[in-house]
Every structure is written in C-alpha cells, then in structure tokens.
C-alpha cells in the first residue's frame, strides 16, 4: 500500500484551519469534499493548543457528538477507538509526528461506535510554523475494510496456491511483484524489483521471464522457464502466464500475470519422456540385433547353398578324377621302357593336371565343410616350426618370415594336414598382397575369450590363435566383408581361384574355431585362426605321420562295390594288378548276393559310400551280420554324413579319399589287411 496521500492542503487549507472560528463555516464544504474523496472522516490536531477536531463523519464513527467534536476534544481521544493491538504503534507514529516527522501513513483497525471493526488507512501530514516547529497534524481516514479483505484473500490464494503475481509495463526496467513471487525465485520480499534481478535467476540458455524486446502488444505467452533460486541455488521450473491489459496512458499495455512452480510435473514428464526414449532405443537395439542375426542367417544359408552345390559337383568330379588318375596311372605303369619319351611326359602332365583338379575339388569340399576331417591332438608350435622351410620357399628371398610361438601353447585337436594347407593358403595370399617385398609374421598364442561378441559366433572359452600378419596393401571394409565368399578374389583373372580363404573359413568352422580379419588399407592385414583348446588328457597321442604308399602283394579276395562303372573298373584293375583276387558288385544288393553266394572267404570289402538303394554303411552293417569281423574300407570324395559325425570320421571307420592313386590304394588296402 504505497498510495500517495490525497493532497490535504487543498481540502484542509491551513490558514482556514488555524482559525477554529471558521471551521464551522467550512464544515459543510469539507464534508462534501471528503465524502466525494471516499474518506471515512477527517481530523485536525492542534499541537500547540493540544486540541483535537473531528469532522462529523469521524465523530459519528467514534460515537462522539459532532458538535463537541467541532469544538475540540482532548488529544487522547484520537486513540480511543483504535483497536488495542494496534494502539501502541499508532501512538509511536503519532509521537513521531508531534516531534517533527512530516508524513503519516498507517493502517489499523478502528472499533466503531456501532461495534463494527473497520480497517482504516490514515493519511496525515504535519504543518510547521516559520521556525519549522510542528503546529498542526491533520489528515483523513479511508475505510479499507473491503480492500483489506480482498487483499487478504489474494495473499492467502498466493501463499496457499504457490502463485506469485506480477505487473510489468513492457520496456520498463522494474516490475511490481508480490511476496510470493519473490519467494518462488528465492529473492528477498519486495514490492518492486528490477527486471534484471528477476531475469538473473533464469538459467543460461533459457528465455528471460520478462522480455523487453518482443512486441508488447503481443501479450503474455505461456512459458516454462528453468530458474535457479537466488537464495539456495536450487534449480526449479517456473511457469508464467498472464494477459496484456490495455488501460495505461497513451494506449499502452500492462502485462499482468502469475508465475508458479511446475518442477514436480516437469520431473514426471521428463521421466516419462526418458522412459519413452529409452524404449525407442531398446526397440532399435532389438531390431538391429535381429537384423544382424537375419544377416548372419542369410549368409549361412548362402554358404550352405553354395556348399551343397559344390559338394554335389565335387562328388561327381571325384569319381571322374579317380578314373582319369587311375587310368593315367595304369598307362604310365605299363609304358614300355623304350617307348617315346614324349608319351611319358604327356602322361606326367596329364597326371599333374588331374592332381591339381583333385586339389581344387578338395578345396571346394573344404569350403563347403563337407570334407571328412581326421582331427588329432596337435602341438601347433611344432606344426608351425615344421612348416618353416616350406613357407620360406613360398615367400621368396625378399619377404622376411618371422615366427613367434608362445611357450606353453595349449593343445588343440585338429586335422593337421588341413591346417597346414590353411596356413599355406594364407601365407600365399599374404605374399601376393605384399607385391614381393615386406615381412610376414606367423604367430601362435593362447587366447581367452571372456565376452561374447556381436560380430562372431565365437563361444566364451580358451583358444589357440594362429595369426598371419603381412605388411601388404590391406583391405577395405567391403573387401573384408566378402573375403570368405567362394570365388571372390582380388587377384587377376586366372591367378586365383577365390577358394583359398573360403576353404580356410570352411575348415576352421568345421573344426569349431573362428577366423578373423583385421586390416587397414595401406598398412597390412592380419588373419587370425582361433582353434578351441583341447582340455583334459595331456597324453601325447600325437602327431600324424604322412602315409607312405607301399606296394603289397597277397592273394586275398577283395570285394569292390561301386555304382560308377569306370571307378569300379579302375579299382578292380588296380587291385588285380596288386595281386589280389577281386570280386565286384555294381550296388549293395548285388554285393550282398556276392557275399552270400560266391563261396569265397572275403578279406576286405572296398565300397563306395553314396550309392542308390543303400549306403555303403548300411551295406557294411548288413554284411557284418552275415560275416562278423568283415573288414570294410570306404572310398569316397564326398561321404556326406553317412560315415561322418560332426565333420569327423566316425571311430573305427576307414576311408580312402577319392580320387586315389594306385599307390594310395595299395597302401591303404595293405594297411587294413595287416591290421
């Protein structure tokens, strides 16, 4: 309540008031004026004479006869109707006035003669003589009961509802605010604050609470603003709402509105939003991992399809090669010593090409993981050491070879021949990538995989890693992605088959391991083969020894079962040449007939695996019912899973891989019969 007091000098002209005699004359005029000004009454305190005059309205309020009041009352009458709880401070204020204070502005309760209690606001001024001594203290009372009630309600509404009010004329440097407004921002209570002080509570990056720039005509926009309370520094969210009121001079507007704290609801909103956001992220993650799985599945299916195709081709191809090699073999052996040397060379060339074709078929099968592996416990260190000569020769003089074998390397169980093949393949690739100069490192280390990786199917566990690192040109992402695809090659046409890496991939996976490529373009490539550690037995079951083919001659009877006539003929011819008595059958049913009715003691059955009607294995089982202890030797380039379990030959199964040479046939048969 900082209203300026009404200008009393106009109403209570001092000269007139100093002459009590003229007061009555003025009484009527004054009453009219005061009533018009909304005053509940007026007083005039003659300090020198110590007399107090009330106008009729104030006299009525006090319950004093108007006549008496006009003639003067004891000054203490002033306090008679003031509520006892307000009286002391009013006494002090009046004492101040009597001692020289100039301005009197107090509100207090007045107990009126009709017993009602009124809130009044007293506006008074002191008047001085020429010596600056106070002589009169006069003023008016305004009844503010209704206003007081409204203010009380407003105050309670603000404090109970946590709502602070403001009034701001756009462009002004100060803003009128309520106590609650200050409390919400942590400011000391004040009626007017600089806009800068209010805006200083706003957090950086947030719009100011009061913006002097925007068009004032626009009104007050709803805003949610993050502030830091001035007193305790706590961060809160404040909402601001209001209206533009057009009632000030010059048609301008006031912005009148409220602020209130919305921190709690913001928190709730944020939590909800966070939940939603993480939900989205979780769904995205799930979709991504699903897509990864789908991609992996698609890749696996592709490999599987290619594998089936190549496996099928390889099967037929092996039969053809068996016949070709067998016949070249035979022709070579029968070649007269004085024959034209060119014929011998031609046969030699034909045999070499056939062997290359056979190894190509082997690789196809390896890639399609359909070659039967014959895993043994292997010391990888010794295996790599053993390849040193071969690798040095392969690399040539300008590429240096380093091998780093970790001590105490764990054991693995792997097909050693295939592993050597794989390493050789990788070394050849590395050599070609280095364009003739550089260095190549073959390392073998123990490796512990402790967490599953999204990018590989590698299980947690112990592995032995063989890595082949070159200093060549490296590969980009796209090339790495396709490196294991069959027939994918970066080499010039005719220089690579595109089967090297896919064979390594097939073989390693078939062995329960994993192949990894790490490469940086321009820096080189490291390919790592990880093979699962062999736990348990430390017995040196050891190491494969390459079979030496050896001739053998005995007159035992051997039954050859093969549906491919050319292959059958080749095998039969070969065995006969070796001195064996040979019976033949074109399919398993025929073979059973021969077993039952030939009347001869059959020492060995040499049988194909995949045949119409019955597999070689089923034949073996049937035959053994008839003749227990019968020796069975399978011959196959692609046995499917008839005699193979989990990629390995079943225990007790003997296999002569197609295509086979005469020597290999001789050696394997001899070995079986001698066993």
């Amino acid at each position: 309540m900082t209203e300026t007091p009404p200008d009393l000098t106009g109403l209570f002209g001092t000269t007139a008031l100093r002459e009590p005699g003229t007061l009555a004359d003025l009484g009527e005029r004054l009453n009219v004026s005061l009533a018009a000004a909304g005053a509940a009454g007026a007083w005039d305190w003659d300090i020198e004479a110590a007399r107090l005059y009330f106008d009729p309205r104030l006299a009525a309020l006090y319950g004093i006869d108007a006549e008496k009041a006009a003639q003067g009352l004891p000054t203490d009458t002033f306090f008679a109707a003031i509520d006892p709880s307000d009286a002391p401070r009013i006494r002090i204020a009046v004492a101040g006035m009597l001692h020289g204070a100039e301005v009197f502005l107090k509100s207090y309760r007045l107990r009126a003669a009709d017993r009602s209690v009124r809130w009044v606001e007293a506006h008074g001024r002191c008047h001085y003589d020429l010596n600056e001594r106070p002589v009169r203290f006069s003023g008016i009372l305004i009844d503010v009961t209704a206003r007081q009630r409204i203010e009380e309600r407003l105050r309670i509404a603000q404090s109970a509802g946590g709502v602070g009010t403001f009034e701001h004329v756009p462009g002004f440097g100060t803003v009128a605010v309520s106590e609650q407004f200050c409390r919400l921002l942590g400011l000391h209570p004040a009626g007017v604050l600089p806009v800068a002080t209010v805006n200083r509570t706003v957090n950086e990056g947030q719009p100011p609470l009061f913006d002097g720039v925007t068009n004032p005509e626009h009104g007050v926009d709803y805003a949610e603003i993050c502030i830091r309370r001035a007193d305790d520094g706590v961060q809160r969210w404040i909402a601001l709402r209001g209206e533009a009121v057009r009632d000030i001079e010059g048609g301008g507007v006031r912005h009148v509105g409220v602020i209130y704290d919305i921190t709690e609801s913001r928190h709730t909103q944020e939590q909800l939003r966070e939940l939603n956001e993480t939900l989205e992220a979780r769904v995205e993650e799930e979709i991504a991992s699903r897509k990864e799985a789908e991609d992996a599945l698609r890749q696996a299916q592709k490999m599987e399809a290619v594998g089936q195709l190549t496996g099928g081709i390889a099967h037929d191809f092996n039969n053809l090669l068996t016949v070709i090699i067998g016949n070249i073999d035979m022709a070579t052996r029968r070649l007269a010593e004085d024959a034209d040397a060119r014929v011998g060379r031609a046969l030699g060339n034909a045999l070499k090409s056939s062997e290359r074709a056979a190894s190509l078929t082997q690789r196809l099968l390896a890639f399609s993981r359909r070659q039967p592996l014959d895993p043994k416990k292997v010391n990888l260190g010794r295996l790599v050491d053993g390849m040193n000569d071969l690798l040095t020769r392969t690399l040539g003089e300008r590429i240096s070879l380093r091998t780093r074998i970790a001590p105490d390397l764990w054991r693995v169980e792997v097909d050693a021949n295939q592993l050597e093949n794989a390493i050789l393949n990788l070394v050849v690739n590395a050599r070609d990538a280095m364009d003739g100069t550089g260095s190549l490192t073959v390392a073998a280390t123990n490796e512990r995989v402790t967490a599953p990786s999204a990018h590989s199917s590698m299980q947690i566990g112990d592995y032995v890693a063989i890595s082949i690192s070159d200093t060549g040109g490296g590969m980009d992402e796209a090339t790495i992605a396709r490196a294991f695809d069959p027939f994918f090659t970066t080499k010039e046409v005719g220089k690579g088959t595109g089967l090297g890496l896919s064979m390594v991939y097939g073989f390693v996976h078939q062995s329960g391991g994993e192949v990894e490529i790490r490469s940086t373009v321009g820096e080189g490539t490291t390919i790592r083969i990880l093979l699962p550690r062999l736990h348990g037995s430390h017995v040196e079951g050891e190491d494969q020894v390459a079979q030496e083919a050896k001739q053998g001659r005995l007159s035992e009877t051997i039954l050859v079962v093969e549906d491919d006539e050319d292959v059958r003929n080749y095998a039969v011819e070969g065995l006969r040449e070796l001195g064996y008595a040979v019976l033949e059958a074109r399919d398993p049913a025929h073979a059973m007939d021969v077993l039952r009715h030939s009347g001869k003691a059959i020492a060995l059955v040499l049988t194909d695996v995949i045949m119409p009607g019955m597999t070689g294995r089923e034949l073996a089982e049937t035959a053994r019912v008839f003749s227990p202890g019968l020796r069975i030797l399978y011959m196959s380039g692609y046995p499917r899973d008839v005699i193979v379990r989990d990629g390995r030959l079943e225990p007790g199964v003997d296999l002569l891989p197609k295509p086979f040479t005469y020597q290999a046939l001789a050696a394997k048969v001899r070995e079986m019969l001698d066993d």
Partner: protein
Amino acid sequence: MGGIELTELEQDALTEVVNIGVSRAAAALRKMVGKQVLLSVPAVEIVTRERAATLLGERESDELVAVRQSFAGAFSGRAMLIFPEDNSLDLVRAVTGDELSPEEVVEMEEEALSETGNVILNGCLATMANMLKRPLTMSIPVVFRGGGSDLFNPDPEAGEDGLVLFLYINFTVLERNLRGYIAMMMDMPSLATLKDLLGQFIAEVVGEAPQ
C-alpha cells in the same frame, strides 16, 4: 541475528525516530534549495552485512553511490545514504536546479551529494541522539561508489560485528520520486544501547513498558 533483535514496536519506534530525522533534514533541504522536498522512511530492518548486500544487489541493477559518515557516542558506527547511480544524478539536478548543463551536473555531483548526504544523515543521527537524549559526534562525509558488497565491506578498525540497520527512504523532490536507502552499521554493544534507548522512548510515548 547475532542475538540482537528489535521487537516490532522497537522497529516502529526506530522508524519514527528516523522519520523525524529525515523530516528535519527535508526542512533543511527546503531551506537550502528553496523547493518542496519531502522525505519519509516507511520501514526499517536489522540485517547482516551479507543480507544487506544481497538486498541491494537484488533491488538495484545499477551501480550505487553512497555518502558515508562515522558517528560516535552512546552508540557508534557508520551511516550511509545510498542511491542507485541514476537516481543520484536526478537528486543533484533536483537540488541544484534544472538550469545546470549535464556537464555541470556531473561536475557538481560529488559535492552536491556529499552536502545532501551530510544534511540527511546529520538530521537522522542528531534527531536520534536528541530523541534518545544522548550526544553523538559525526565525521566529515565521504562519497564513494560500488556494488552492494563493496559498500558493506567491514571496516577493520571499527570492529563492527556486521549488523546493519537498513532503512528504506523515499524522496520526493519537486514531484520527482527518488528512492534510496539509509544503512547504519553498528556493533553489538551499540545496538544493545540503541535497543535500551528505544525501550525508554516507547515507555514514554505509550505510557507503559511495552512487551
């Protein structure tokens, strides 16, 4: 707040005492400048130095100008009359008359301020001493500028305990409304003495010992 608190009535009494003082000062200013000058003090608070500084910092975005005087007697300390910088020029313009050029106003500002401050602070302190029936002596006024915290830096020699009587003061000079503050920094014993004296004053006026 440091053990010394004024009751509501004591605050009212202090407000009135200061009101009498500023009214005397206004009368003196009226004589000095020959114009209508009205001064009043609506409220008083006892606050710590820190709170006084933040109060000023929150309410005034401008730099502040202060006239400072030390006083000694039954109670002693330092008194300051404080204005926002822009108000101080208005005050100078008001008391010197509008015929001065802006350069002259700036030139005279220091002198006019220190004179005005001296009148007002003297009025207040002398009235307090008079009302409370104790003599006070006052030093020469000094004008200085700064932010809220600069003004309330403790004076190491005075050994003040950091409490401030903080009074709001309204000036009306030729219909121009200016706002300012009076701050009196006192130590505990001085405040205790003041409290006693205010109690006596209240007893006299109200007629019985107040609670």
